[in-house]
């Protein structure tokens, strides 16, 4: 029984056009897949070997990015073994064996003991049949090479390659590989230090609710105590909330909503001080309120805008804060119509060369880049007498970035 279509089926010309289109589409998809997989073909075996070694090294580098953790070491040993071509490879630190890859894993717990002389002397050690005791006649772990991994002039771990036989070539290769791992670990340590520095800066920034601001706030509140006690009470509560937020302990990220709420408190306090001289307008797209941003990333920018827009200028100053929804990112802009500054000075501030009077700008820039990548830094548009506009983008999703503790 032929299929009954709800409408007249068209002539076979259509079918042909369709099949041509279908074949074209499949062909296109296949091309795309090939492009994506991008297996490079090498004509020259030397080229190929070079590529493969470098590629394996790159894979191992990724695993060692966090230093010598058991997980990272486990993943790295797989690649290290393929680089050395030995039966088994193990890494031990001064406390215990971190990882074993390859056959004969019942020797895993002996590695730490084998490596003892290496860890204390820092010299490469070759183990023979006598030192490696094994009651399994089929076990291929008969000899081993243990090379020290040195970081900051200390032996922190050892790399062991096991197999049936050893050779001078393998000894040298193991030593070289251990040296290479040392470099990776030092790099990881550098990375950790950079993170620590940023964290320290963040702590410093928290403590940096500037003494001037506290003094000015309290003075402004004091001026209301007699004339308008209700307002004074309200402002004190705002001040309490503001400090509680700014001094909180917890995660490095928060939602845009919480950050903006805190900015509203801050602006309420500044308005108490400046009165009619400060005009603030906020345009916030509600769609982006859930975006995660680095904690206290916007408040310093607003504080700068208020200082530039008002303090260095006579008359009314306008500050505009915008958060817009732009596809997969949120765009946040803080603009003032104040004195502006020299672009060169600004560049130096962003590069961290001088603190200038732009509080924390370099710090915010560094934290944004660290969280989301280099393309998400601050963009500052300014010129003397032309006001300042600071803007940045935040991706709606970034791996590893969550608001909360």
């Amino acid at each position: 029984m032929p299929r009954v279509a709800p409408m007249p089926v068209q002539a076979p010309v259509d079918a042909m056009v369709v099949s041509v289109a279908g074949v074209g589409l499949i062909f296109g998809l296949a091309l795309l897949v090939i492009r994506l997989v991008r297996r490079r073909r090498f004509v020259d075996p030397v080229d190929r070997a070079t590529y493969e070694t470098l590629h394996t090294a790159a894979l191992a580098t990724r695993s060692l990015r966090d230093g010598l953790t058991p997980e990272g070491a486990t993943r790295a040993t797989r690649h290290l073994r393929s680089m050395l071509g030995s039966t088994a490879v193990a890494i031990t630190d001064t406390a215990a064996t971190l990882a074993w890859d390859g056959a004969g894993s019942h020797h895993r717990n002996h590695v730490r003991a084998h490596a003892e002389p290496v860890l204390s002397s820092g010299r490469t050690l070759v183990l023979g049949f006598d030192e490696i005791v094994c009651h399994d006649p089929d076990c291929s772990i008969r000899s081993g090479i243990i090379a020290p991994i040195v970081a900051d002039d200390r032996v922190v771990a050892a790399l062991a390659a096991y197999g049936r036989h050893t050779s001078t070539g393998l000894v040298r290769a193991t030593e070289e590989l251990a040296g290479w791992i040392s470099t990776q670990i030092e790099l990881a340590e550098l990375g950790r230090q950079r993170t620590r520095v940023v964290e320290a800066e963040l702590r410093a920034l928290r403590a940096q609710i500037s003494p001037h601001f506290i003094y000015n706030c309290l003075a402004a509140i004091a001026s209301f105590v007699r004339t308008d006690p209700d307002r004074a009470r309200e402002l004190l509560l705002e001040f309490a909330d503001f400090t509680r937020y700014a001094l909180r302990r917890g995660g490095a990220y928060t939602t845009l909503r919480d950050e903006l709420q805190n900015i509203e408190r801050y602006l309420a306090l500044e308005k108490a001080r400046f009165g009619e001289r400060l005009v603030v307008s906020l345009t916030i797209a509600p769609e982006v309120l859930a975006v995660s941003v680095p904690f206290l990333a916007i408040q310093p920018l607003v504080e700068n805008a208020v200082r530039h827009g008002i303090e260095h200028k006579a008359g009314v100053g306008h500050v505009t804060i915008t958060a817009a929804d732009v596809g997969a990112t949120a765009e946040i802009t803080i603009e003032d119509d104040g004195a502006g500054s020299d672009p060169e000075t600004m560049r130096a501030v962003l590069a961290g060369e001088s603190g200038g009077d732009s509080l924390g700008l370099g710090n915010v820039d560094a934290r944004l880049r660290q969280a989301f990548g280099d393309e998400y830094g601050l963009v500052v548009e300014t010129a003397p007498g032309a006001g300042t506009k600071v803007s940045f983008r935040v991706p709606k999703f970034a791996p590893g970035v969550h608001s909360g503790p």
Partner: protein
Amino acid sequence: MPGSTSSWGVAAITLVCLATVAVGALGLRLSRTTSDFYVAGRVVTAGWNASAIGGEYLSAASFLGVAGLVYSLGTHMLWLPVGYTLGYLVLLVLVAAPLRRSGAYTIPDFAEARLQSDRVRRLASLLVVAIGWLYLLPQFQGAGLALRTVTGGSPALGSFIVAVVVFASVAAGGMRSITLVQAMQYWIKLFAIAVPAFVLLWLWARGGQPLPSVSDPAGPFGGALPAYATREHPLYATYSTMLALCFGTMGLPHVLVRFYTNPDGRAARRTTVFVIALLGLFYLFPPVLGMLGRIYLPDLPQDARADSILLLLPSAMVPGMLGDLLSAVLAAGAFAAFLSTASGLTVSVAGVVDQDLFSSRLNRRLGGDLPRRKTFRLACVVAIAIPYAASWLAPSITLADTVGMAFAIAASTFCPLLILGVWWRRLSVAGAAAGLLVGGGLALGATLATFAGVGSSVSGWLPVLLAQPAAWTMPLAFATAVIVSLATPRSVPLNATRVMVRLHAPEEVTGRVGSHGD
């Protein structure tokens, strides 16, 4: 009527087009008044958010296709609108809240958050593009159809106009998904279908025409609900389509991004409940109009498709100005449906093309910083041009069927990824990738085969299996993902447990320290 130019219709469609472009370009300024304080406290409420989801979700297939199917196949098709709504129930129960808590904006984001794998992310991106294109295709076809029926112009012109208008509105600033604007779209569509429906029902009640006979079991309005009665193996086809609709909704690219706007998991659930109510309300009307079509247009006019019955009906019932006017309102509603769904899809597809497949490569190749806006526009062209070209080549498969295939692919790929990702700790990277490849490959292959006309020459199971693949591709994809995951315990991401806790624990437990509600 075909051939007769209706100035009302042209005016209505022009108005809708102009309004869409204007809103795309000026949207931000129109929809947001700059207010002074406590802006941050304002959130998008569940009701508005649900309206916005409805606005993007109700497409050409819903507006014209459902009425067309009820018209041509009778009450047997009543389960189709039920199926379109049912998907949100599954979404509500299984994934809405955990997905929101994952912080993901798109499905590729979810894959990355859950599995920490760039490759699975890339794979998911490719599938988003494929599903988006397949869903865009009937939008262009439907638009051409609506324009031809109302104005008598060529269908090619209609598709072209939609392509241009969608590009203009999206490229001019459509990256901003403004909840308020999308929410208005839902209410416009509801108005555009409900008002004509009520007027025509009133006319019918006054005219005293009899209902189509329900007692005749052989007629399209009689008997039980075997569904797809005109096809072979109707029971299989029905279950397979239902399965695709139930489990495919969660994988539609333009629906999911809306959930990001919810402040937390609980709000995501509440929004979904509202969505079900709003869609249920809307889907009351197309079957009513399809039934009226059965009464007043028992024979489809020459060279008209069943999909256009909604637009032909008013003139058939009340010739003259009222008929033209109602026809114009329906056409405007249908056009609004094409534009909003097509814009939403284009933004999603272009976003993925731009972010995951395009901009990094382009920048690397050209060695410079291409401005974000430029690469996004280029991605928009890609996102629109391919389904537009395909709408020329694809055969005249009904709108609802093409949409059904997009659902089937989503159900065989993203549904396993999301459900296993949310509920099964032992899902491994290799398992997820294998599931996506198997499910996506089979469903996509079946779709292409159907388009190529494999089904029309042979009879038996093959064409049915190819046209409604979800019932076999989805279980296969699930099985592949589970078996490969069990076989590769080493590629289970290391922090799976931590991610699972974040997905399932309410936000108050994982602690938003910054909130000061106390």
